[in-house]
């Protein structure tokens, strides 16, 4: 198999009751690639992210990280998931940054960032703290390690949550609309750190509404609507010269709002 493929999704299907949210989605993400997923609300992009991060289960389809299978369609046509131990291993391959941060409010910044490396990955305290300090410096948060999340601005909280995800040393990092809960003047600082990660060739999948940002940072853009991938390609191809009518409509409405 190709060792460069970090995430492999094939024929993913997911319904909530009668509503089909994902209709046969397939996509791969290669090492070092930055993939932006755009699309209107209800297009299934968040559900795709939640299925990929094992927060939701697929109804059917194949899902693997680094060639390790997390789920595959079984003989009865339903997705069968790997064992608990295997899924635990697979969870260590990815990180997720939430729209509303989901930091642990009762922990300081430092404990938010080091608790999982120490108690889940069983790293030494010294090692976890060293790594955390490096990342905090990189994100411009070096003076905040003893703060509680409620003492930080939204942009700072989101940067802490990015540090928390990176501290687990994931192979791939997912972002679920990372700036949607932020005031416009705070989105810039978060986009800046994501851009920094892209320059370091961190493998990332970003669900976003920031078209200019997607264009600047992504290697590939996927436009989703109605549970299918309508169009994908380079940012130029999808965002500037879209082929599909649906993509054009979406982008036109989007530029009107800007």
């Amino acid at each position, binding site marked *: 198999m190709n060792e460069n493929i970090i995430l492999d999704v094939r024929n993913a299907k997911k319904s909530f009751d009668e509503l089909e949210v994902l209709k046969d989605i397939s996509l791969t993400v290669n090492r070092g690639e930055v993939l932006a997923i755009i699309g209107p609300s209800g297009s299934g992009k968040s559900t795709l992210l939640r299925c990929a991060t094992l927060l939701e289960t697929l109804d059917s389809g194949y899902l693997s990280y680094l060639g390790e299978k997390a789920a595959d369609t079984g003989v009865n046509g339903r997705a069968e998931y790997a064992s608990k131990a295997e899924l635990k291993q697979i969870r260590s391959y990815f990180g997720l940054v*939430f729209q509303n941060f*989901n930091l642990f409010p009762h922990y300081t910044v430092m404990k938010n960032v080091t608790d999982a490396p120490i108690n*889940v990955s069983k790293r030494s305290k010294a090692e976890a703290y060293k790594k955390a300090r490096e990342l905090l410096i990189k994100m411009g948060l070096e003076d905040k390690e003893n703060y509680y999340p409620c003492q930080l601005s939204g942009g700072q909280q989101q940067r802490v949550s990015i540090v*928390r995800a990176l501290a687990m040393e994931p192979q791939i990092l997912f972002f679920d609309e990372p700036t949607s809960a932020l005031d416009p003047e705070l989105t810039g600082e978060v986009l800046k750190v994501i851009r920094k990660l892209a320059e370091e060739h961190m493998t990332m999948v970003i669900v976003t509404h920031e078209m200019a940002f997607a264009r600047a940072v992504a290697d590939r853009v996927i436009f989703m609507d109605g549970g299918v991938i309508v169009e994908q390609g380079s940012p130029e191809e999808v965002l500037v010269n879209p082929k599909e009518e649906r993509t054009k409509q979406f982008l036109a409405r989007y530029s009107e709002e800007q």
Partner: protein
Amino acid sequence: MDIAAMLLRLSEGMLRSVTIFGLTLVFSLPLGLLVAFGRMSKWTPFTCLGECKSGFLRKIAGFKPVQLIVKIYISIMRGTPLMLQLMVVYFGPWFIFGIKISLAYNFYAVIIAFVINYAAYFAEIYRGGIESMSKGQYEAAEVLGYSKAQTFFKIIMPQMFKRILPSVTNEVITLVKDTSLAFVVAYAEMFTVAKQIAAKESSVMPFVGAAVFYYVFNLIVALAMEKAEKSVSYYQ
């Protein structure tokens, strides 16, 4: 009877009231957590029937026995007077099973009845706290690889305790006053003693003493709980 003798007898009763209070909290606070888990149990032993055609069998598939039993227990504990529960625990062994009970049993009956009653109330308070936690906290912990136990004890429980402290304060203050119910099984706690002296001496002074005792006790409880609330106010 002079004031000193009266105070001495009252303080013996006071000691018994404080004992009921302390032991009830020591046992009912952790037991309440266990009951809360039972109340939130989603265990369905008959899931395999979910595929059946019969509607009745499908209903059984969704049957949660642990949750149902705990629900009934909580409903009885909250729906009947604590005084009645005390009497059932005290007289039950003799009337139901014909077991001869020793005189000292009344103390154990008081503790048992108080613990099972208060555990039910605490369980519902815990459940409220746990269910008020945002889903995002669980998801963040899950993605980071925390086990279910780690998620509960490290992430959810500390935040739950902060949220439920005001309700727990209410319950604990009620408990201080409820200790006086132990009189129904002839356990000589503070209020029982005060009544005995008052009847014998034809004086209201013992009641004044009792009132001061309950008030000061609750004042201490309220101050301690306020301190506890302050100690976790560093985060939101």
